[in-house]
C-alpha cells in the first residue's frame, strides 16, 4: 500500500518536472523581447546575441531540457532567473515566506472555524442555530474570492482607512519587536480574512454533514447513556470521528487553496509567490517559473503526503 502511494508521488513528480519545462515555453513570446520591452529601442543585435548566449536560449530546446533536468534533479539547482539576475532559490526565498504566512494562518483559521461552526451546526441539525449558520455561510460561499477581496479592500481600506491598501509591511519604517509584528499583522489582515472567508464554507459544510452522520451512531448513544457531559460527547466522541473528511479535504484541496492564495495576493499586492509568478509570467522568465512552480508543487505533494499519515493515525485512534 505504502509503496503504491510512493510510486504515485514519483509519477506525479515526473509529470510536474515535464510540465514545468514545457508549459512556460508553449506561451508565445521570448524572454528577451518580454523583458526589454520599450527599451528594445537601444537593444543592439550584438547585445541581444550576448543575452541569448548568457541565458542559454541559443541552445536547441532539447539541449535546454536536458540541462534543466540534470540541474534540477541531480544538482538540486533551480537555475538562474533571467529577470532578477540571481539564483532562483535566492529570489524565491524572498517571496515564499509571505505566501506561507498567509497560507498557513488562513488554513488554520478557516479549518478551526469551520470545524467549530460545523460541529455546532451539525449537532443541532435543522434547528434555528443551524439554519442561520447555514444561510450565512451559503451566502459567503456564493461570492468569489475576487469579490470578497475587492469589497474588503474598498470598505475597510479605501473608505474606512482601517487597513493598509496593500503590501506586507510598511517600507523603510525600521520598526522592531512588537510594533514590527503588529505592522505585519495589520498588513496581513485583509488578505487573510479574504482567504478564510472563501475557504470557510466548504470546511463548515463538510464538518456539518459529517457531524450529522455521526450523531446517530451507536457509540454516541452509548456515550449519552453513560451520562457523559454534552460538550465532551460533542467534541471528543462526535467531532473526532467526524473530522476525518475535514482533514482529507485539507490535503486534497490544498492545491486549489494555494491557487486561491496566489490570486488573493495579487488583489492586495501582497509580495508572495502569486505576485512573483505573475511577474515571471509576463517576463517569460523560464527558470523562475520552473523553479517557483516546482517548489509549490513539492509543497502540495508534501502536504498530501502528511495528510495521508495524519488520516492513518486519526483513523486508528478512532472508536
Amino acid at each position, binding site marked *: 500500500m505504502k509503496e503504491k502511494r510512493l510510486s504515485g508521488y514519483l509519477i506525479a513528480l515526473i509529470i510536474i518536472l515535464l510540465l514545468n519545462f514545457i508549459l512556460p515555453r508553449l*506561451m*508565445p*513570446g*521570448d524572454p528577451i*523581447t*518580454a*523583458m*526589454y*520591452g*520599450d*527599451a*528594445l*529601442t*537601444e*537593444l*543592439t*543585435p*550584438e*547585445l541581444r546575441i*550576448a543575452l541569448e548566449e548568457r541565458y542559454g536560449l541559443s541552445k536547441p530546446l532539447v539541449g535546454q531540457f536536458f540541462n534543466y533536468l540534470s540541474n534540477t534533479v541531480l544538482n538540486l539547482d533551480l537555475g538562474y532567473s533571467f*529577470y*532578477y*539576475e540571481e539564483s532562483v532559490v535566492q529570489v524565491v526565498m*524572498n*517571496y515564499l515566506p*509571505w505566501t506561507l504566512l498567509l497560507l498557513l494562518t488562513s488554513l488554520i483559521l478557516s479549518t478551526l472555524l469551520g470545524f467549530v461552526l460545523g460541529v455546532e451546526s451539525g449537532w443541532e441539525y435543522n434547528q434555528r442555530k443551524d439554519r442561520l449558520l447555514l444561510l450565512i455561510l451559503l451566502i459567503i460561499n456564493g461570492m468569489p474570492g475576487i469579490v470578497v477581496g475587492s469589497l474588503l*479592500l474598498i470598505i475597510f*481600506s*479605501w473608505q474606512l*482607512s482601517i487597513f493598509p*491598501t*496593500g*503590501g*506586507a*509591511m510598511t*517600507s*523603510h519604517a525600521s520598526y522592531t519587536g512588537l510594533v514590527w509584528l503588529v505592522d505585519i499583522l495589520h498588513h496581513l489582515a485583509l488578505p487573510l480574512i479574504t482567504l478564510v472567508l472563501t475557504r470557510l464554507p466548504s470546511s463548515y459544510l463538510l464538518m456539518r454533514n459529517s457531524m450529522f452522520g455521526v450523531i446517530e451512531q451507536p457509540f454516541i448513544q452509548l456515550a449519552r447513556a453513560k451520562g457523559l457531559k454534552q460538550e465532551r460527547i460533542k467534541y471528543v466522541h462526535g467531532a473526532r470521528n467526524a473530522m476525518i473528511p475535514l482533514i482529507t479535504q485539507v490535503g486534497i484541496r490544498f492545491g486549489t487553496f494555494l491557487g486561491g492564495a496566489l490570486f488573493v495576493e495579487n488583489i*492586495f*499586492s501582497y*509580495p508572495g509567490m502569486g505576485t512573483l509568478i505573475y511577474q515571471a509570467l*509576463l*517576463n*517569460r522568465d523560464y527558470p523562475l517559473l520552473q523553479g517557483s512552480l516546482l517548489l509549490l508543487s513539492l509543497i502540495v505533494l508534501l502536504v498530501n503526503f502528511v495528510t495521508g499519515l495524519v488520516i492513518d493515525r486519526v483513523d486508528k485512534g478512532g472508536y
Partner: protein
Amino acid sequence: MKKLLLVILLLSLVVGIGFFNLSNNSEAEVEVLKIGDQRGDWGYPTPHRHYLRGPGYLRMSLIFDTLIWKDESGFVSALAEDWSYEEEENYFTFNLRRDVNWHDGTEFTGQDVVFTFNYLQENPYGWANLNAVEKVELIDDYQVRVYLSQPYAPFLERVAGVVPILPEHIWAEIEKPREFTATEAVVGTGPYQLAEYNRTQGSYFYQANEDYYGGDPIVEELIFVKTNSPEVELQRGELNIVEVMPEAVESLAEAGFELMTGNHFWANKLMFNQHQEPFDQRKFRQALAHAINREELVERGLRGYGVEGSQGLISPDSKWAAKELPEYDYNPQKSRNLIEELGYSKEDGVYTKGDQSLEFTLLTQEDRISEIIKQNLKQVGIEVEIRVLDEASLDTKIDNWNFDLAISGHGGLGGDPMVLNQMILDDDPKSVRFKENQQLIDQLEKQLTIMEQDRRLEVVEDIQGIYAEELLAITLYYPEEYWASDGTIPWFYTAGGIAIGIPHPLNKLALIERDFD
C-alpha cells in the same frame, strides 16, 4: 482646559503650515518625500541591474550623474561644465567640473569618464548605444574628448545625456556588472545615495548627498514605495506624488492636489502586416486610415484623455514635428471608393475579390480601442476579429510577421528624432521595418549626420512626410498620463523627456536647489 489646548494646537498648526509654505520658497528642506508606483520594483539601481524601462533608469539616475542633463527648457550642465563640437575632426570636448567627489569621498576626474565609455563598450548597457563613439581621450584631468566614427546628431540626447558615469576605482575590477550588487555598486556622484533597496516590497530608500555639487538637495529622505491604490494613498497623505488614472483627475483637483500632464510622447499604432495582401498596397492602407475615426478613439476610447495621432509619428508637441503632412480625414465613403478602386466588391456587406475577402484578425492588449476600430471597419465593409494577448505574445507575433493587424505602442516620441530610424528601419516589433522606399532610407540615414539643428529639421520633416504618405502604420493617438502631487516639490516636465525621453515629472533636478545655471 482641553478645548483651549486644542485651539492652541490647531492655531500653531495653521501658523506652522503658513510658515512652512513661506519658507518653502527660500531654503526649507523636506524631511521625507514618498513617491508611489504601481509596480514597485524596478531593479537594483545600477546601470546593468535596473530593469530597462524608464522608472528603472530614473531610480538609477538619482545616484549616477551624466555629463549633461536636461531641465524644462533643454540641456544643462551636469558633470561637464560646458561642451563643444569640433566639426572638422568630429569630436566633442567636455570640460568637467573640478568640485565633484564620489559618494565615498574619492575625487571625480576625467579618467572616470574615459573609463566609463570604455567599460560600457565592453559591457553594453541597454540604454545607451555607443556604436557611434570611436574613442574617448583624456586631455587633462578635467577635459575629455569623445571622437565619433561619423557625424552623429543624436549624440548629446542619446549618449552624453544618458550614459551614467561610473567610478573607475570601483568598477575597474568588476567583470560581471550584471552580478555586482555590493554596496560600492551604488557609489555615484548624484544628489542621492541609496540607503536601502527592498525588491520583495518594491521599495527604495535614498538619502540626500549633502555635498552635491549641483546644489543642496531639498529632500532629506526620498522613498519610493509600491502602491496598488495611488489615488487613495495620496489623499490620505501617505504619498506625496503618484501617477493617477485620468478618471481621478477631476476629483483630485477639487481636493486641492496639483495635477500635471506631460507631453504626448507615447503613441499607440495600428500596425499592418505589409508582407501580406492587401496590406502591401499603399492605397489599401490609406483606405483604412480614412475608415478609422481617430476622434472617436480619443473621445470614446480614451474618454477624452488623449490627442489624435499625427501620421508623421512624431508627437505634435515635439520641436521636431512636421508642420505640414498628408492628412487622412475620417471619411468612410472615401475609404470604400479606394477599396473599390483596388477591384473589391461587396458581398453580404464584406468586400471580396476573387476568393479573397476582407476579413482579418486584430491583435491587441486591450479591447476597448479595438472594439471601436472593429465597428469603424465593419462600417466600411471589413470584418475584424479581435484577439487579446499579453505584450510579450503580441510583440513576438508582430516580430515574426505572424499577424494581419495589430495595435502596439511605444514612447520616445519627444526626444531625438532618431526614433524615426528606430521605428521605421530597426528590426524591432515596435518598428514597421520598412526598407522599400530608398528615398526614405537615404533621408533617415542623412538626418543622423546633420549636426546643425535647422538643417536637420528640414530632413526630419521630409521623413515624416514620406512616412505619412507610405502609411506603414496608422498612428492612432497619444494618450495622456497624469501625475498628482501634494505640491511639496515644484515638479516639472523635462524638455523632450528625461534622458532618452522618459515622459515622467520625476527629474532629479526638481529635488535640488538649482544654482549652477
